[in-house]
């Protein structure tokens, strides 16, 4: 089974890092094949940017995301641009503090930016979201993603990032329990 995931947002939100960390977790800490791609050049500047991963049990041939099974949107512009690219029945995950989804859309939301601000560093918004995505989709084990975070971010910032991840992850669990 081939699963396609697209992380999107505006420049500076750490969208590429989200793809990299999730890909790292899947490729190195789960027994899965995974490819990550991103847009380069004019496309990657300003506006809505994205990073993309394809996950599968088998070797991946075509490396690009065609119709995401999971779409993560951290900005309204990204949501508007990429929502139509997602598969029917795709899992749509948004920062619901920043994105106002269309009425009929069935989304999973977390105010990730607010969480990050509460933790004192807006810059970890993406990692809060990673925690939420991990819990909502179950695509990777929590430990795998945590290991990927530890291997990727600056050593000094590991505790903060793990806290951010936990915040997102726990929020998802609470929401699920509440349901």
């Amino acid at each position: 089974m081939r699963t396609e995931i697209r992380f999107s947002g505006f420049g500076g939100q750490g969208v590429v890092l989200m793809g990299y960390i999730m890909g790292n977790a899947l490729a190195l800490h789960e027994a899965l094949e995974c490819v990550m791609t991103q847009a380069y050049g004019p496309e990657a500047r300003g506006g809505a940017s994205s990073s993309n991963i394809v996950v599968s049990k088998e070797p991946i041939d075509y490396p690009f995301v065609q119709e995401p099974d999971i779409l993560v949107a951290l900005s309204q512009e990204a949501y508007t641009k990429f929502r139509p690219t997602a598969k029917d029945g795709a899992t749509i995950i948004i920062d619901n503090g920043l994105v106002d989804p269309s009425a009929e859309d069935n989304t999973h939301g977390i105010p990730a930016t607010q969480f990050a601000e509460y933790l004192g560093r807006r810059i970890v918004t993406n990692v809060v979201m990673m925690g939420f995505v991990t819990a909502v989709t179950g695509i990777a084990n929590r430990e795998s993603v945590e290991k990927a975070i530890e291997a990727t971010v600056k050593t000094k910032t590991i505790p903060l990032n793990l806290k951010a991840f936990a915040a997102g992850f726990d929020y998802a669990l609470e929401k699920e329990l509440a349901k």
Partner: protein
Amino acid sequence: MSNRRVLTGNHFMNGDIATAEGAMAARIGFFAGYPITPSTEVAERLARRMPEVGDTFIQMEDELASMAAIIGGSLAGKRSMTATSGPGISLMMENLGLAAMMEAPCVVVNIQRGGPSTGLPTLAGQSDIMQARWGSHGDYRIIAYSPWSPQEAFDLTVLSFNMADRYRVPTLLLADEVIGHMVERVVIPEESEIEHWERKKPTKPPNGRFKPFEALDDDLVPPIAHAGEGYKVHFTGLTHDERGYPDMTPDTHQKLVTRLVEKIRVNADDIIRTEDYQLDDAKIVLISFGCTARSARRAVRDAREQGIPVGLLRMISIWPFPKKIIKELASNADTFIVAEMNLGQMSREVERHVSQPVVGVNHAGGEMISPEKILKAIKEVAGDV
């Protein structure tokens, strides 16, 4: 980052960085380059990594200089490499010819982007296939490999250094932007498991006259002496005799240039790398390489599910051309299809060697050819069979 030369372990890295780490693992000693998308990450990685282990990285003023510098570095005894793309590889063609003529082992990485000219700086191409083979003036041969994954970018960079040294020939890593920029798992083996082939050296100490261009072995590769080893060598881009002395006569030219070409031809079986997928009973032979081969494999798998007898020959080496293998496949095939991100370069080469129809699946560059497009071509051909 790490003071280790070989980053043994599992990594999630892109093809450019894997290429740089392949060079590290191959014990590169000298890198000279000039930034150009999409190859820049190779230089950036090596700029950080090489000094960690005491190797020399230099950013030159342009690609003419970069290519000239790595020849110098190589002839001073260091494994030397440069990396470029698009307009940069065109500038390097001048001294690629010099490397061929001086038989200076070196590795030239070309992360292909769309051309001609400035073309598509950030998007993929596979249209330097013929340039790699014929880009500098005159008759000569080079070796070229084309990876289809970051893992293979690592592996083939190591192999390129080994081949360059074994055959005293410039070797190109003809990757493409898709492979250069896509991130995938790369497993770097233990340092002791990385093959390292030494250059053939003079067997006698430096007295009398060593001939750096005298090939006495069947492989037609002369031993090499480096600057500072006492052999008082002379290297020139002019037509030269076995001592390396200029001798601009038709006979010497014929002898030298023929050997430069034959050296690769007689060793082709050792140099060529291909991979088969579902080829055993294939009536339709699909040929592809680099990133396009990934789509090709999916297309073959899908076509097989529909009962179409198609198989894939993935060219891992691009030059020398796998003439023998293609001829063998031709004995059983009805049609060849060549999928490549250019307007028909490799398909021309295939056409030269088979009598069957050769169908091209092409795109000028900028986006990968999709599996669907290749599948469609396979189905069309199968409908005719």
